[in-house]
């Protein structure tokens, strides 16, 4: 047997090279994801405070794969790791860029808005204000970012969507009460922002609405929405704004104020009842309003039931589906006229986290798996 003195050294080098190649392959896969599919969908994991947001990620998947019948859940084509902070907002601009607003955790606020390419490459880190977690809205060539700041008052900042240059800002506050900004919605003319505030009865929720001219950032009007209001979602459609009132299950008014409809002509608030109380997340496709209902949201008087509803806004006829008790969805979107919800729960195995869509039988089916899924954007 011939002894080869260099063999162990060569084997060592080969192993090192193989290891390095694998490591670099892993790195480059994360750094330069492949091209985005024609119909990209984005799932966000950004709300697991139990794990100190260490599992935060943005997942890209081919939304057209949702057309196939649900057999086994899809796995995303690519994922990008995100910073460890609460990520409440995910927005996509027409050019495909993704905008994420961060808001820290119990021990830290955050100021970052992260801008990613459609493929998931980080393009820019902006620091427009503290806690940009109450909405991001592209309007023309501008981006309006709604920041909750310290919760006593908030701020809206306008940036040029291409150069990211600041274009202006407006502070939002109330004379003798806090204004914790939590929801917003915009069309080409107006930005509407809702705040949590206080009122005469500390056991009840009070929301306040700020109306801002999108072009000038001037405060057009500001109106209290009254007791038992808590609005985290504002949907613009056909020149009107639809505010989902998560606190309506606790309201005794008739009709039950599940939906607050606002007409920019008069700024009058019209209350409407939906098939279920306490809509929290929602989307409008055509003339149909889809909503996820969570009467236990952000309240000291929680209820366990959850539901989904669909309402034709032309006739206000609708239907609803019960969801399992405690099914805490983080977001809602719509694919092919079917509502889809993100679901994650610290006590459920991560294999059960992800995007659930309603099937023909009216039951939710897991379509895309993603641990700690909390947000969704679908084309």
């Amino acid at each position, binding site marked *: 047997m011939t002894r080869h003195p260099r063999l162990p050294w060569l084997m060592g080098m080969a192993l090192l090279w193989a290891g390095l190649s694998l490591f670099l392959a892993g790195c480059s896969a994360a750094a330069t994801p492949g091209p985005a599919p024609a119909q990209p969908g984005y799932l966000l994991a950004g*709300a*697991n*405070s*139990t*794990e*100190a947001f260490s599992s935060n990620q943005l997942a890209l998947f081919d939304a057209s794969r949702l057309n196939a019948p649900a057999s086994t859940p899809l796995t995303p084509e690519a994922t990008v790791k995100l910073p460890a902070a*609460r990520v409440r907002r995910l927005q996509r601009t027409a050019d495909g860029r993704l905008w994420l607003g961060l808001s*820290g*955790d*119990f*021990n*830290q*606020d955050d100021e970052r808005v992260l801008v990613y390419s459609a493929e998931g490459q980080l393009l820019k880190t902006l620091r427009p204000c*503290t806690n940009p977690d109450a909405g991001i809205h592209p309007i023309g060539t501008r981006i309006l970012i709604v920041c909750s*700041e*310290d*919760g*006593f*008052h908030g701020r809206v900042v306008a940036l040029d969507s291409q150069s990211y240059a600041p274009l202006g800002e407006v502070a939002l506050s109330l004379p003798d009460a*806090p204004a*914790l900004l*939590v929801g917003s919605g915009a069309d080409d003319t107006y930005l509407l922002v809702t705040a*949590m*505030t*206080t*009122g005469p009865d*500390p*056991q*009840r*929720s*009070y929301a306040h609405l700020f109306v801002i001219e999108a072009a000038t950032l001037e405060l057009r009007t500001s109106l209290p929405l009254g007791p038992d209001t*808590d609005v985290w979602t504002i949907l613009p459609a056909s020149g009107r704004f639809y505010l989902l009132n998560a606190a309506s299950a606790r309201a005794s008014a008739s009709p039950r104020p599940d939906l607050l409809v606002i007409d920019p002509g008069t700024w009058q608030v019209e209350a409407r009842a939906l098939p279920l109380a306490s809509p929290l997340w929602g989307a409008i496709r055509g003339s149909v309003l889809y909503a996820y209902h969570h009467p*236990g*949201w*952000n*309240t*000291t*008087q*929680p209820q*366990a039931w959850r539901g989904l509803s669909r309402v034709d806004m032309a006739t206000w006829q609708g239907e609803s589906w019960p969801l399992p*008790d*405690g099914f*805490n969805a983080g977001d809602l979107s719509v694919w092919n006229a079917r509502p889809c919800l993100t679901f994650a*729960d*610290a*006590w459920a195995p991560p294999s059960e986290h992800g995007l659930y869509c309603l099937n023909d039988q009216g039951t939710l089916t897991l379509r895309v798996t993603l641990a700690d899924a909390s947000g969704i954007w679908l084309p």
Partner: protein
Amino acid sequence: MRLSRTVVLVFLLLSLLVPAGLALAAPQPLDMKTDLNQDGIPDAFAEAVDEVARAKDKQAAIQALAARMPYQRETYALQKEAQALNRKLASARTSEEAERILARLRALRTQMEKDPVYSATLRALEKLYIQKGYLPQPASRTGIQAVNWSALQPGDVMMIRSGKLPWMSFVYAMWYTHTGNYHGSSLVYESNPDGVRLKPLSDWQQSGQYVGLARNNRKTASQVQGALAWAENRYGTDGRTPYNYWFPDKTTDSKLYCSQLTWKIHGYLGVDLDSNAWQYHLWLSLMWGPWVIPAVAYPAVAPDEVSYDSDLTIYSESWN
């Protein structure tokens, strides 16, 4: 010549006697291996903790127990480094500098975990505390909405454990990582590194977090609500009161950390929520070294110390 011989002899004698004397004076290392009842808690350690519980001078007993831990020499060195870093926190000029120091403290804590005796000690202490009811049972969902949110009143103290490694959130945490004060209308009044602020109750209601809700049992609800209003007026709602990274300085009004804000609110009513509970002090001294008791545990007020205070009645403690 004779003199130098005498000096050498004396030196030799001393070099033999002094270490022997020191060895006799040094505390006997605790036996962290024998566990006859196989409950995961070394028998000698369980007995030593019981001795602390029974001791009249708890701080001396804690110091004595900490001195007997057979940690690796590197661990003791890391604890000394932590002591020096903690001193630096006092003079940190910017929040960035303070955050860097805290990050280094967390890294030291992670390094200490490599000492098997150190990590086994903290695991054993946790088990013992759970057995004795000083700490809650391990994570499990006891039922939907197990936290009694409906009892929450303005002014109530809220405590939360978020993150599986509490010291990653707050370096001197044993169980709770953060405190807040219920403001009413689903708003929570808190202090964090960006100043005093309001946050939505929904952040506290996420699944997997352990929440404690407590009420001052010495004062009426309206008195506590008055103190809350006083605090909001005093510390501002415009970010003018920054975060206090120097935890031992709890009396200052110019900067605040979360449990200091809670302590101030109730302190305004003459109620001292700093329990200085021995259970927390023992935990902390086994984790960071005995230096931490006079340097941090006594002068500061941690969320864990608030949770042990007898002036508070904890009416709900559970996993979300």
